[in-house]
């Protein structure tokens, strides 16, 4: 069961995160905290003509939240805002599915590795942390991200 959680893809992203580090210029930034464990992430979003030209981030956290940020970067960087929305939606839906959804690799890429996380309610928040921060950062960059991410 634990191997479902710590899939190699996740451990890979954790140990070798993609696009980590805060970069300028950016249009919006958000800092989110998981109050129960103290994990933190800061995300910056740069937008140019409807395209997410850079998503940069930094933070302290567990393997799940760190890998999730890395996957987010990989999935959304360079996409248009319209393309990003269904990906976000699919990721959030997967996380809130309690393991009842079969993820679509076409949409979620490496994100499918998080399917196992959905079975660990206490870890869902970890996986969602960067996505919540991204949503806020994107909004501040003027591109309202669509899906409702529940913060509690």
């Amino acid at each position, binding site marked *: 069961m634990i191997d479902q959680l710590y899939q190699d893809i996740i451990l890979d992203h954790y140990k070798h995160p993609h696009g980590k580090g805060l970069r300028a210029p950016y249009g919006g930034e958000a800092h989110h905290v998981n109050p129960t464990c103290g994990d933190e992430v800061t995300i910056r979003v740069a937008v140019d003509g409807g395209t997410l030209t850079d998503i940069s981030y930094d933070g302290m956290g567990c393997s799940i939240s760190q890998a999730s940020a890395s996957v987010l970067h990989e999935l959304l960087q360079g996409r248009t805002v319209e393309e990003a929305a269904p990906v976000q939606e699919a990721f959030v839906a997967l996380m809130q599915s309690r393991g009842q959804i079969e993820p679509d690799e076409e949409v979620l890429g490496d994100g499918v590795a998080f399917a196992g996380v959905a079975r660990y309610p*206490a870890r869902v928040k970890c996986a969602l942390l960067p996505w919540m921060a991204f949503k806020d950062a994107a909004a501040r960059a003027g591109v309202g991200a669509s899906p409702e991410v529940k913060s509690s």
Partner: protein
Amino acid sequence: MTFDVARVRADFPILDREVNGHPLVYLDSANTSQKPRQVLDAMRAHQERYNGNVSRSVHTLGTESTTAYEDARAKIAAFIGAPSPDEVVFTKNSTEAINLVAYTSADLLQLGPGDEIVVSEMEHHSNLVPWQLLCQRTGATLRWFGVTDEGRLDESALDELVNERTKLVSVVHMSNILGTINDPARIVARAHQVGALVLLDCSQSVPHFPVDVVELGADFIAFTGHKMLGPTGIGVLWGRAELLAAMPPFLAGGSTIETVTMAGTTFAAPPARFEGGTPPITEAIGLGAAVDYLTALGMENIHRHEQEITTYALKALADVPGVRIFGPGTPEGRGGTVSFEVAGVHPHDVGQILDDLGVEVRVGHHCARPVCTRFGVPAMTRASFYLYTTTDEIDALARGLEQVRKVFV
């Protein structure tokens, strides 16, 4: 479905007990209700099999416990028609729930001299004293609805009483002493017209008939687990999401925070913001099980059963010489809580003789002393009914009152 009171009673272990050599006749459910096996089993299961602290652990016990605690919140939200579980704040009882609003509303409503808070003469002390103290702290003025001779809320001066200066109206949904069920529609409409908030003390209504917060139109409601088949130590404040979001923390500490430094703290979103420290976890799970039990029977059916018992009781009491009922004399617009006096006998003595016969009623001012004052008596005797009450028990009460008269009159 017909309501099978015998089957219901079989779920309540305590109802098999004897008191002073007589079968227990428990007519004090408005004070605290008895608890079915299903509720006790759910609590015991938590304590014996998956006890762990909530919201703080990644481990299995903690996760199971958190899931059960949050499931209970969702059940209770559904039970009262709350739009979201996040609008349900767990407290230890109604009294804490009301105090939570009273303490935070100084800030929320920016209260000061000239502002008015409105309650009624029919309130339980728990919905009166917190507002008296709030007015003392802020300089606001407390005003109140009177009570008519029939024991109804006197709304004749509504428009004067609830006016531009009014910031909050807090009234009881069903009186714990007179049994009166208030229809809050006019008060809610008037309060909202002048921009005031409305809290309904639903401690006696949520246990006994269907309550839907959206239909009621209130801004807050408070109720308490032990009066609705749940355990002691758990209560509920429901509040509209945007109001809860605007309120400062009250009992602050572990779990209420977002981030803490020595220099300052930011706070979590509701409901966590208001649930300081380890909450009554087992008790919330017990209340969830109580709500399951009530829902399975159907609140409409429970209400209908209690109306039948009340009709029967009002008649039986009226037939005892010297008995005078306070509050509505017919079952319309009242619940199964009937207070009365036996001419010439002090309630303490009435209660004592009844107890000797196994009939458990409450005597005293029922934490609603202004109602006693209103009706010119120091205390009242009260019989209160619930889903397990039978007409036989009402007969035992009436027989007991004959005995009271034999000793004292």
